[in-house]
């Protein structure tokens, strides 16, 4: 346990040393922080209407103004971040865990299983994500869980393929042969020796994937197929703002800016994570 | 005087790192005369690769030239512009690398690559192709005309290294730098390549700077030898002087360690205990002192200069000074 803690510290210090990585850490940290403590941060109830104060610009009492129903945009943005993470984190980590397992089995297991899993992955990937999402939502109705499920299902193949390629490269490396020569079981080889060498690559992929999922959630909510109103979501904010852009630009900014900032933050984090998880690059420091 | 082609004069090169300056090369001096083969011997960490990249000026961004000059045909390469260096590389100075698997572009035929590197010549394509075939024949590739249309993966490792040599010699360079060109090959192929290199060198009259850790190859191929240890030249001179009367303990011990040197079966082979010192934190005195069994007080405190110890023979060791032996 002590080892993995120091590993995590090395990774975080490594990311923070890179200016972009530092920015990524700060942004992602702020988003996560505001999502966790949203209830204490928001000055107003994000779904409480106040018709008298509708469509205001920024002021001290409403930092980002209000929407057409007089709801505080700042509060809705913060709560929307919470919703975005509630979708993105389980979807991405779920897809990563399942993709990793299937990919490693495909890469290390028998050829027929590999062929079968690859066929499965290719089949899933051949559905256009948005069409697939629309179909599922049409069937079971819009909800947070549906979005999570759809996103997870469509991103499993990506993780699976990467994990499989990594496994195939590693399986013929000398240290795996050495483990086999000592009689290590398949579970031990996969879990103890391959996993730590694959997970870094997937973690990078996941960090870069989170903004895509946030954008997808926003997109689905924009189309009215994501999170049900009045629950605030960045996509829903954007949708309202789009309709009212002639009257006030603040709603579009309130909905669009967080998506841009979150995308940048996670991408910076992912890119600097990529540089840090490679032990060969780390050695040169 | 005028027969000197490459002159490394008091060259010191550092790498800037987070731990401080890594003194990769310190006060390196030696020269390569026209049409001679100079061998550079040294183990890991001796600075061979820094030396090569400094000569070619293909350096990492954290490289700092602290002192010295690299004079090629009289002009200092460290002061040359990037444009001048480009004109020199692959024309007057060519290089053959260690790994024959990675030197060629995998998607172009060997013939195409050999024609491409003649981009400086105005000759028509047919003539260039003919020249390529001649070069392949010269390095001992049978049926060269037909093999020009093949791709690198269709050749064996030994063949690819020959092709690399053919390409390097195509421009008839004055200096060929060979960086461990036979290390990745079997002994039988190694010998073939060395012999071929020797023949070509005689025919083309070019100088060769041959870097290797294989003492046997150096002894067989080279006219003069430079022995490097941890970023410094510890001994240099005529190949016979170096192998028959080494004047530096490191050279002596290195030759003793070569199992090819020991004729009868030995239960215990000689070794040099210890490790190369940390170049970011160089101890005082002689760089070899910690592994030297003859080190004295003086070796602990002062760096021995590289001085003449006989005709065509230099060494950097206090043991060669009369005050010590007297």
């Amino acid at each position: 346990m002590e080892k993995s803690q120091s590993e995590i510290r090395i990774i975080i210090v490594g990311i923070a040393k890179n200016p972009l990585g530092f920015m990524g850490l700060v942004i992602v940290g702020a988003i996560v922080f505001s999502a966790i403590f949203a209830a204490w941060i928001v000055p107003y109830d994000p779904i409480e209407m106040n018709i008298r104060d509708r469509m205001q610009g920024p002021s001290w009492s409403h930092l980002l103004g209000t929407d057409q129903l007089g709801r505080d945009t700042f509060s809705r943005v913060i709560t929307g971040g919470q919703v975005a993470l509630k979708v993105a984190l389980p979807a991405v980590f779920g897809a990563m865990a399942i993709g990793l397992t299937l990919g490693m089995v495909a890469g290390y297991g028998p050829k027929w299983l590999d062929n079968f899993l690859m066929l499965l992955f290719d089949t899933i990937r051949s559905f256009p994500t948005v069409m697939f999402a629309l179909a599922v939502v049409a069937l079971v109705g819009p909800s947070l869980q549906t979005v999570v499920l759809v996103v997870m299902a469509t991103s499993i193949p990506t993780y699976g393929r990467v994990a499989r390629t990594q496994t195939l490269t590693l399986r013929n490396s000398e240290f795996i042969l050495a483990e086999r020569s000592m009689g290590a079981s398949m579970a031990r080889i996969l879990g103890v020796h391959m996993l730590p060498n694959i997970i870094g690559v997937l973690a990078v992929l996941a960090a870069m994937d989170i903004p895509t999922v946030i954008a997808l959630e926003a997109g689905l909510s924009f189309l009215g197929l994501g999170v049900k109103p009045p629950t605030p979501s960045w996509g829903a904010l954007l949708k309202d703002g789009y309709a009212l852009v002639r009257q006030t630009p603040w709603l579009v900014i309130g909905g669009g800016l967080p998506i841009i900032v979150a995308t940048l933050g996670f991408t910076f984090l992912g890119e600097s994570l990529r540089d840090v998880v490679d032990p060969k690059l780390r050695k040169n420091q | 005087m005028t027969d000197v082609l490459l002159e490394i004069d008091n060259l010191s090169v550092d790498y800037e790192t987070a731990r401080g300056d890594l003194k990769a090369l310190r006060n390196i001096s030696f020269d390569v005369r026209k049409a001679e083969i100079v061998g550079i011997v040294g183990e890991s960490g001796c600075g061979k690769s820094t030396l090569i990249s400094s000569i070619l000026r293909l350096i990492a961004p954290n490289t700092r030239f602290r002192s010295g000059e690299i004079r090629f045909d009289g002009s200092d390469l460290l002061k040359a512009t990037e444009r001048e260096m480009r004109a020199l590389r692959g024309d007057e100075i060519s290089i053959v690398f260690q790994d024959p698997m990675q030197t060629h572009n995998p998607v172009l035929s060997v013939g195409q690559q050999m024609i491409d590197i003649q981009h400086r010549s105005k000759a028509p394509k047919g003539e260039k192709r003919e020249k390529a075939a001649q070069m392949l024949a010269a390095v001992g590739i049978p049926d060269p005309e037909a093999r020009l249309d093949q791709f690198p993966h269709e050749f064996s490792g030994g063949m690819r290294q020959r092709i690399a040599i053919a390409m390097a010699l195509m421009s008839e360079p004055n200096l060929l730098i060979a960086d461990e060109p036979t290390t990745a090959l079997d002994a039988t192929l190694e010998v073939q390549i060395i012999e071929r290199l020797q023949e070509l060198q005689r025919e083309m009259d070019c100088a060769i700077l041959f870097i290797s850790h294989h003492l046997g190859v150096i002894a067989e191929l080279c006219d003069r030898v430079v022995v490097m240890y941890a970023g410094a030249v510890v001994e240099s001179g005529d190949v016979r002087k170096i192998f028959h009367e080494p004047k530096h303990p490191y050279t002596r011990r290195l030759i003793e360690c070569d199992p090819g040197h020991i004729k009868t079966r030995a239960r215990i082979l000689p070794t040099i205990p210890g490790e190369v010192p940390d170049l970011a934190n160089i101890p005082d005195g002689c760089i070899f002192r910690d592994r030297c069994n003859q080190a004295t007080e003086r070796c602990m405190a002062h760096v021995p200069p590289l001085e003449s110890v006989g005709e065509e023979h230099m060494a950097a060791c206090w043991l060669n000074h009369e005050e010590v032996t007297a």
Partner: protein
Amino acid sequence: MTLLSVDNLKTSYGPVNVLAGISFDVAPGETYALVGESGSGKTTVIRAIAGLAPAQEGSVKFDGQQIRGIPERSLRPLRKDMAMMFQDPVGSLSPRMTIGKLITEPYKIQGMRDRDLDAEAKRLLEMVNLPAHFANRYPYQLSGGQARRVGVARALALEPKLILADEPTAGLDVSVQGELLNLLNDLRERLGLAMVIITHNLSVVKHVADRMGIMYLGRLVEEGTTETIFESPRHPYTRCLLSANPEPDPDARLERIALKGEPPSLLNRPTGCEFRERCPFSQNICTNTPAWETSDGHGHRCLAPLT
């Protein structure tokens, strides 16, 4: 008494016959060297012995027990007595494990949970002359020589009877190479280990091997005690290999016997003697296929052997 007996072992990958029938025995405590050019099948031999490469035909008997093609489950208990060393000293160590964990890996795999692993790690590091604090380092922090010692420590952890070593001195500096060979020699004598060592460095073979076999295109072409082979090789290929070993002496102009060309493709094996086309001594008779002949423990596969 033999510890390892390999008989007519054959391996092919599709149409490529990598091993075309290899036979040799290793006695307990004996060091046997396999030499030959790249592509001669040396590495495949020891991997096939250890069950890491397929072998379609022949037999491998270890301690009297047939082990070719038996399932991993039955092989695992035998692996205690048979350890391997790989070519790349750093690359054969799992990159994200500490040295302490790596060298006690055999105990964990063999289910010896009662051992004090920290104490074992210390003992093993001491045995290969590495300081105890190396247990906390990672493979990428080691030099080639140090990583090689870790490989030796791990191979010796369970006190095996046989070590299969693939180019144990590859990538090491001359001054460190001697240290490793001395260590192996010493441990071998103390622990009574047998070794099969693969190398293309004949100078190394001379100092460590009791007997040696020379491989060409997946076959043995000569076998005998190291002394006999170095003094009076019978097969021209052996003679060529021995002469292609530059000595560190500028005046040593040995009689070099040039080998013509390069090894032929395994897909297109020559008829008759397979070395015929490269042989400087080939005769008309060599179009016939040579059989394996032995006298006094010195065997060769040549129709016109050297005297």
